[in-house]
């Protein structure tokens, strides 16, 4: 990590990485397996839908999100239970329909709802945090070709930040893996340049 290389184009723009397009999910999966086997770490596969088996093909680890969500859900339920107990038993105890003010039964419905709302928010927000979203600005999103992913295109991109990154080597590997197009992606500071480039 000490000698971190910084890649720049001839015109001096920082290089984000190299992206390659593949014809279909099958090609994409095979290429992903090759990238995985070549030992890259900072790379990603982009597809209009989650391709089945891609976790294996990319050698991805299972996400820890479920643990976070479970903890949040249980805490939510506990908070809900204790809050109701505080209101019913301590802050404003009233005898209602002969039910004791510390009856646990009546607390169940709202306890459950508290648990649910904590679970739901932590699932969604946890997903955002783990995925680094929202991030409205990304070098890839400025590539015309890349925008096709949201329709029917399949792309793999390897970042220049990867230790094994070497623009030429990556290009060759992609071409060998059957890429239909390979492009260099730069971290452009000025949007207008992009437009001109297209």
């Amino acid at each position, binding site marked *: 990590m000490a000698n971190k290389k910084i890649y720049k184009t001839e015109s001096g723009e920082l290089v984000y990485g190299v992206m390659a*397009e593949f*014809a*279909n*999910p*099958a*090609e994409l999966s*095979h290429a*992903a397996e090759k990238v995985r086997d070549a030992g890259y770490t900072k790379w*990603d596969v*982009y597809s*209009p*839908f*989650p*391709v*089945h*088996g*891609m*976790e*294996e093909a*990319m*050698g*991805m680890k299972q*996400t820890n999100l479920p643990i976070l969500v479970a903890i949040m*859900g249980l805490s939510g339920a506990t908070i809900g239970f204790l*809050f109701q107990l505080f*209101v*019913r038993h301590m*802050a*404003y105890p009233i005898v*209602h*329909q002969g039910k004791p003010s510390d*009856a646990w039964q009546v607390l169940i*419905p*709202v306890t459950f*709802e*508290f648990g*649910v*709302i904590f*679970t*739901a928010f932590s*699932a969604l927000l946890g*997903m*955002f945090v*783990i*995925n680094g*979203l*929202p*991030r*409205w600005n*990304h070098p890839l999103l400025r590539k*015309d070709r890349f*925008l096709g*992913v*949201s*329709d*029917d295109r399949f792309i793999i991109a390897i970042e220049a930040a990867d230790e094994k990154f070497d623009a030429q080597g990556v290009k060759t590997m992609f071409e060998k893996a*059957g890429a*239909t197009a390979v492009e260099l992606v730069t971290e452009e500071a000025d949007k207008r340049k992009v*437009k001109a480039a*297209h």
Partner: protein
Amino acid sequence: MSAINPDQTTAARLAGMMRAPEPPRVDDPVTKDGSLVEDPAVRAPLVLGNRTFNDVTETVCGYIEKGPGRWWMPAFGLASSVASITGLMVGYLIITGVGVWGLNNHVDWAWDITNFVFWIGIGHAGTLISAILCLLKQKWRTSINRAAEAMTIFAVVCAGMFPGIHIGRVWMAWMLFPIPNSNAIWPNFSSPLLWDVFAVSTYATVSLLFWYMGMIPDFATLRDRAARRLMRQGDNAPTLPIVGVRVDQLRALIYGALSLGWRFSSRHWHTYEKAYLMLAGISTPLVLSVHSIVSFDFATSVIPGWHTTIFPPYFVAGAIFGGFAMVLLLLIPSRILFPGMKDLITLRHLENMAKIILTTGFMVGFAYAMEFFVAWYGANAYERDVFVYNRLMPPFLAGEDGKYAPYWWAYWTMIACNVLSPQVFWIKSMRQSPLVIFIVAFLVTIGMWFERFVIIVTSLHRAFVPGEWGMFYASWVDILTFVGSCGTFLTLYLLFTRFLPQFAMSEIKNVMPQANPHWEGYGHHGHGHSAGGAAAGGHATHHAPQAPKEGI
């Protein structure tokens, strides 16, 4: 046509200038549109017409970008004028007081709560359909889940209004929430009505999250299409009249903001799918709990006809029943009104929904029967009388004593619509005919409204002592408020069809055959594939180097 160098037509299509050509229509005597496959070894195709991924994008985004068609504006105008009645009626109610409704001292809950339960029932169905079918891995859900979820939100909007306005002094509604106040008064957490507040608001929030989360990738698709058009068209892009903003600029901005910068990364998809599954997993018990809690409003009481332990699952079954009916009421006309929708919502989809209507119809039928049986078996005179003389007995069958149920017509409307009308679905040709399904769905919607009316009004209008007896007659304000709520629902749904993706594009693409990397249409690229054929068992290890180890 290669993917990289498209021909002129494709290029035009990619640029959003042309609709995809209509594929030739299949009209097979057995499989009709090609989806009614009888062979048990074959799963029916979920997308018809040999559509490509791009076709799906074009079709769904087309409804937003090119507009749904000329019918939309008049329909929207009509629906929103009906919706405005709601505002008038609610205003009149608040200014004058709840006396403008037909409620009285005997029947103190009537149309207000009937409408609330009716709408909340429909509102439950959407998320339930979407979440349960997701948990059960029912791939056909991808074509109906978005509309169902949208419908949920709009129905909850309509439902939420009624308890709010029926409390009388609307300006005191904040007291429903546990807000610390100077009188040190807290709400009563042992009251089912308070559970309702928490349940319904939790439900509305989580449904919104679920709906929104599903739409994130589709927003990104809309964003990217707008961005690409901007790149290509430059200054020639069409602008909005008067304001002069480029339409696609606006789309890229709004849909882009909503998409949160989603970029279809597989690492994101992995977490996303997990999170979505967990949301579906928590939504399912949530929906069950919310409609159960709505049923607790009645069942925790001691009123005959209300206090019965089967209410929670019975209400949930009723919600699925009524909800599927409403989904069908919306989708069957949509199939006709929106071009290309018949490829996404096939006859098989409709048939499956018809079967679910039949099944859930039996579930509510079972609950009606069980209530009746136990009212008799419990040998409680009040229970027996509520069922026979408050609900069932028509005047022309009355005995010597001349006792009959004044609301017998409501009860029998409910039975006819909810239990009898779905029986036509036993016949295959009936459950495969969109027209018949539409008619039955309409009847079921009516029946489900009457179910709530029967439960609420018939139980209340003759309680324990005859001194408490009295009839309920709806006032014109009652009626117009309900009509208005239907208009509100339709207005919101029409707005949804105009501005939001009606189908979960990424999910539909995912259930198309070519989405599977092992589809036999691929498989010949010198990677050692052999499509089909049983001899190649050894390849499994080659292609799945990290296949999970089996337990034990």
